[in-house]
């Protein structure tokens, strides 16, 4: 295989997915410090925001320490080479309340997301961003919950609305490399647009799955500094960049400066480095959204139950992203049984 000239587009999700790991408490100063570092490393896209994206600060998922406006305008100031990206889930964020201001703040890349079987709720948001001349990607979250044929159908809808790339998120960290290979290559075959992959590391597969995606034809990858992200974290970006370099892919990222950025992230914003905790392993196995880790741990303690039992029970209920309220209901039932 000739990888030598292949270019990859890297999105750094440290300041968005990492927000899950600190209950959405990222500060303005931390955003400024890390954006400066990522920008100087030459990361293509830096994603910033609440863990569930634009307009998602809520009692349901967790309130942000700073507003979307502060997060985005701060990031904008420190990103020159790098583009500013955001995650957007219709149902949380609306065009009037959230997207229009985000465009005014200077966001370049809009990643419009839905649960992997619900792509049609992204139509108006994707079309709106397109008419504003912005770069728009479609994101299928929790993609382990649908087979490759359904994923291709949903991805095709996003492509038809105008998405320039489709990103499969392994939001639960549930995939093994063969799953990634199967789904990405199928999408590659059936879509015109580029394919991307967003890993979580619950089963220790963050890097391996990302590489499997590239080898199956993906050309966009997500990662975060030190793996700072929901649950067990994401593909560790500085490792990913190094591995890609050895494999002969071009990311346009300066490795030394990326390593520096990752150390800066560790000292400036990471309270505790992501590890594959025993609870995270169960979270990955049960196929529950990685962002549930913090509330599951808290609520399991409040109700005096085993968080592993809680994760498996939530997995059986097939909860999707954004259903944090169900955790208490399920915990209460478990504590009574």
């Amino acid at each position, binding site marked *: 295989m000739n990888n030598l000239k292949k270019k990859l587009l890297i999105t750094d999700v440290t300041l968005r997915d990492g927000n899950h790991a600190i209950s959405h408490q990222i500060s303005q100063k931390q955003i400024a410090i890390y954006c400066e570092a990522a920008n100087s490393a030459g990361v293509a896209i830096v994603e910033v925001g609440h863990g569930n994206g634009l307009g998602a600060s809520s009692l349901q998922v967790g309130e942000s320490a700073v507003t979307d406006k502060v997060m985005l305008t701060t990031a904008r100031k420190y990103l020159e080479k790098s583009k500013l990206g955001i995650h957007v889930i*219709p149902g*949380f964020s609306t065009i*009037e309340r959230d997207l229009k201001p985000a465009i005014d703040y200077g966001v370049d890349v809009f990643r419009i997301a839905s649960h992997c079987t*619900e792509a049609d*709720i992204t139509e108006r948001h994707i079309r709106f961003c397109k008419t504003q001349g912005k770069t728009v990607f479609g994101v299928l979250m929790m993609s382990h919950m649908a087979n490759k044929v359904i994923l291709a159908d949903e991805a095709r809808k996003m492509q038809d609305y105008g998405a320039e790339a489709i990103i499969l998120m392994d939001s639960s960290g549930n995939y093994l490399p063969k799953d990634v290979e199967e789904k990405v290559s199928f999408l590659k075959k059936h879509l015109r647009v580029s394919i991307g992959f967003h890993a979580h590391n619950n089963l220790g597969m963050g890097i391996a799955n990302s590489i499997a995606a590239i080898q199956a034809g993906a050309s966009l990858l997500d990662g975060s500094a030190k793996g700072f992200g929901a649950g067990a974290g994401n593909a560790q970006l500085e490792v990913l960049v190094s591995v890609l370099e050895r494999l002969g892919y071009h990311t346009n990222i300066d490795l030394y400066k990326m390593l520096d950025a990752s150390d800066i992230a560790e000292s400036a914003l990471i309270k505790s480095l992501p590890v594959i905790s025993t609870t995270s392993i169960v979270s990955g196995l049960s196929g529950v959204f990685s962002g549930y880790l913090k509330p599951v741990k808290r609520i399991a303690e409040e109700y005096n139950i085993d968080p592993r039992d809680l994760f498996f029970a939530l997995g059986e209920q097939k*909860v999707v992203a*954004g259903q944090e*309220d169900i955790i208490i*209901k399920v915990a209460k039932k478990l504590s009574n049984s």
Partner: protein
Amino acid sequence: MSQNKYQVAILGSGNIGTDLLIKVQRSNELECVAFVGRNLNSQGMSTALKLGVTISDQSINYFLDHSDCIDLVFDATSAKDHKIHAPIFKRLGIKCIDLTPAKIGPMCVPSVNSLDCLKEININMISCGGQASIPIAAAIASIHKDIEYIEVVSSIASKSAGPATRLNLDEYIQTTEDGLKHFSKAKKTKAILILNPAIPCINMTTTILCKVKNPNISALKKEVAKISSKVQSYVPGYELILGPLLENERIIIMFKVRGLGDYLPKYAGNLDIINCAAIAMSEEYAKVNER
């Protein structure tokens, strides 16, 4: 045909309109005199035909010639269409219950403001999440004077969300937030909608999350019990499943809404609740009319 029943018509022959029809047929107060849409070949039309109800594909024009025998119309079309329909119904002297998010008339939640609404000629039923959450928001407001923030999260089965719902998520959110604000006087409100594709389909759940300065949970429990039994009188599948409780500095109250399974499946509580609310209001209008 009974002469003393209140004469209603349904405009819009989709799922909502057809489910309303079945509910009207069961009512002791109401009689459906016309089921009106644009396409005689739709499933709704054939259901109406089987029930022996007069059908028409003349849409709003039907009402121009038949206003004499119609007391009230349910508009189950779209916000865009209702904006055109509303002045016509007004001119024809037909009362209107608007099931779209057009918000021409005042917002109506039967358990909260039915008496005020009976004076109106056009009332708006807000949204499914609004019907499920506003009674509770009002209960919270009756005990807590300064509500900082109320948030409502509704999770519904993917199969219960048709193309119109999916295209209009933003309008759903805006309308529900406006309704919450109006009835609770909270400083800030937020609505979130989640679609869950699990099979078997999930029942609609609606969770009210709230921040107040001095939460009084025991008083709230009584108030919530009172208002939810009021809602249950017209939405039998409305059931408190969690709370009110305090968790992580939030008040949490969760409801399950199971539908009656008339035309729409039982899990589609989201569609049932707004129809049940509309029927409850039309029956109130009918009673006033008798007097």
